[in-house]
């Protein structure tokens, strides 16, 4: 396992009031964020600044204002890159090389000896399922294979921090499932990962820690539950399936926490006994509902769930819109 004691005092990645301009365009604005370990999903609309954020973390860009630190050292410093494995979204390679040669070169350029590099390359390619295809030139690879090769070069020198820019783009569902398993495994072994993706369902399978960027600003950071808690004013929607929905609705409508009640059309997930209750200040609502149900035990509630406690709904609220990126 990685010696996390080495990072006890210093976070693995730190953004300290970071802003980045490209000419007159403000790409990132006053980002302050600390990351110690685990897996973080980075989400945001197109042009929100995700790639800029990751490139700053990888030391490929310098912040216009503020600092980016890797284990307490400036990310721009070449020595910080020992701790980083960066997987970019761009698809440019040294096309004349085979996959194996490419990963081998990357390993050698990280300071590995020939023997170490060869052994590590073999191991990584085996792990990513590329061993049989490794001798083919990269220009003949499919999109998915290129993604895996990019991942391989990021892993070959065993960095504690992996920065992955859209690692699942262009990968088929089966491959995606395998990669998700791999990411979990890497995390268990001690690697920390920052993954940007548009696949929110995938990120939710991987982690509950998300970082939401919106128009260059850090809109939210933390677990989904934490972010939800902070958004106490945001009305959540609760689906309740009960034997007498109209009576329940008559009771609930007078509550100050309830803003609306709907009867959804019947579908696979809903029946005619289902009602959707939109509430704000969910904590107060749940307290009142608990007392109400305790005093009135005749209600036959068969289903009770919050239907927008998800990254999509959260993203939709924070970014505005459906939550699609």
């Amino acid at each position: 396992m990685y010696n996390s004691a080495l990072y006890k005092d210093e976070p693995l990645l730190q953004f300290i009031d970071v802003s980045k301009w490209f000419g007159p365009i403000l790409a990132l604005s006053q980002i302050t964020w600390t990351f110690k370990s685990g897996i973080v999903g980075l989400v945001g609309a197109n042009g929100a600044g995700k790639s800029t954020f990751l490139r700053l973390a990888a030391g490929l860009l310098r912040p216009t204002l503020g600092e980016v630190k890797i284990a307490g050292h400036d990310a721009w410093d070449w020595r910080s890159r020992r701790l980083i494995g960066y997987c970019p979204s761009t698809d440019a390679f040294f096309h004349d090389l085979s996959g194996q040669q490419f990963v081998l070169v990357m390993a050698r350029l990280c300071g590995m000896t020939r023997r170490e590099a060869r052994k590590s390359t073999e191991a990584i390619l085996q792990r990513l399922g590329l061993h049989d295809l490794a001798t083919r030139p990269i220009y003949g690879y499919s999109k998915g294979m290129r993604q895996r090769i990019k991942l391989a070069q990021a892993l070959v020198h065993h960095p504690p921090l992996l920065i992955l820019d859209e690692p699942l783009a262009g990968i088929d569902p089966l491959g995606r499932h395998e990669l998700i398993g791999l990411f979990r495994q890497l995390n268990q072994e001690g690697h920390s990962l920052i993954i940007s993706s548009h696949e929110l369902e995938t990120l939710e399978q991987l982690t509950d820690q998300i970082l939401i960027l919106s128009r260059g600003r850090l809109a939210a950071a933390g677990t989904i539950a934490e972010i939800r808690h902070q958004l106490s004013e945001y009305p959540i929607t609760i689906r309740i399936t009960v034997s007498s929905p109209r009576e329940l609705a008559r009771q609930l409508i007078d509550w100050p926490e309830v803003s609306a009640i709907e009867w959804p059309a019947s579908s696979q997930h809903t029946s005619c006994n289902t009602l959707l209750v939109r509430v704000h200040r969910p904590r107060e609502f749940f307290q009142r509902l608990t007392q109400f149900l305790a005093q009135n035990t005749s209600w036959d509630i068969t289903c009770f769930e919050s239907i927008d406690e998800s990254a999509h709904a959260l993203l939709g609220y924070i970014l505005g819109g459906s939550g699609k990126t």
Partner: protein
Amino acid sequence: MSKIGDLENPMLQDNTVSFTFKYRNIVLSWFYLIWFILAGQLRRNSLTLWVSTILSGVVVLWVSIETQRDRWDLRQRRIARAGPTYGQILDRAIMEQAYAVLSSQFPAGTAGAVPLLIPSTLLRLNQIQSHLGFMHYSYWIMYGVYLGFLMPLLTLSCVNTLIDPENDAWVWLWSRPLPRSSIYLAQWIGTLPWIFLLNFGVLTALALAGGTYGRRSLFLYSLSIMLGIFALASLFHFFHILFRRPVVIGLIYVFFFESLVGNLPGSVKLLSLTFHIRSLMYRAAQAEGYQVELLLFPEAATWEAAVGFLLFVTVLLTLLGAWLSSYRERREII
């Protein structure tokens, strides 16, 4: 606070590979990078090199034809279409000079052998005559075609092919734990052998095609050209750091700035790399006794000044480029 240098990478649970960062290994990886850049040209089937080869081939073919037809020696060249050759004019001038001198020294009708007192002017005329061919070859081929066209273009294309800014593959090098200045230096060093190979390959072909004059020019001018290549390579690498389109900037520099500034009177021409390289070639020819002052070029710098300038430019631009690369972001990202 832990220092990064003290960090050790752990073992993986399966496929265990232990790997410890050491500064010694980073130095070795830098040398590996130089080899990687150097070997890059071997892997690629580059259109640029093909076009360079074709252009060089055209020049070599032209030189070999002219050499076969003995056109470097101006003796055979006619002044006008139906006029006398330069050789005939020179012979006539020598004869007239000799007749004038001898008739003034010895009265008419004097019998006996003509004393072999050849005045220095006659000797000089003869010497010019024998050197004319080489100077003519130097003027057109070495100073004109090679220095003014082939050398800068081959150097520029070689630098650009190996560090092609139109390909985003540089991101792989920049994300390695190597100082960016060292990556710049590695690129500089890695491209030099190819630049020398290309340039001296062309020079050797010209030497073979150019006959005696070609071989003589290869022998005389090699050092000057070597220093010139260092300076030009440093300059074009520096353009790569400074500009998004270094090829076009290089062209403007070679065919506009150098053509204009290198031939201006006064001190402005001292800014020109071509002027200093030409000065070195000049002085090398002068040291062998050639009358290069007959060629229509502005006065050359001294040997020491020219060498000093070229070395200074090489070192300055290389160090500046290395410093800039450690400080600037790659423009292609933006």
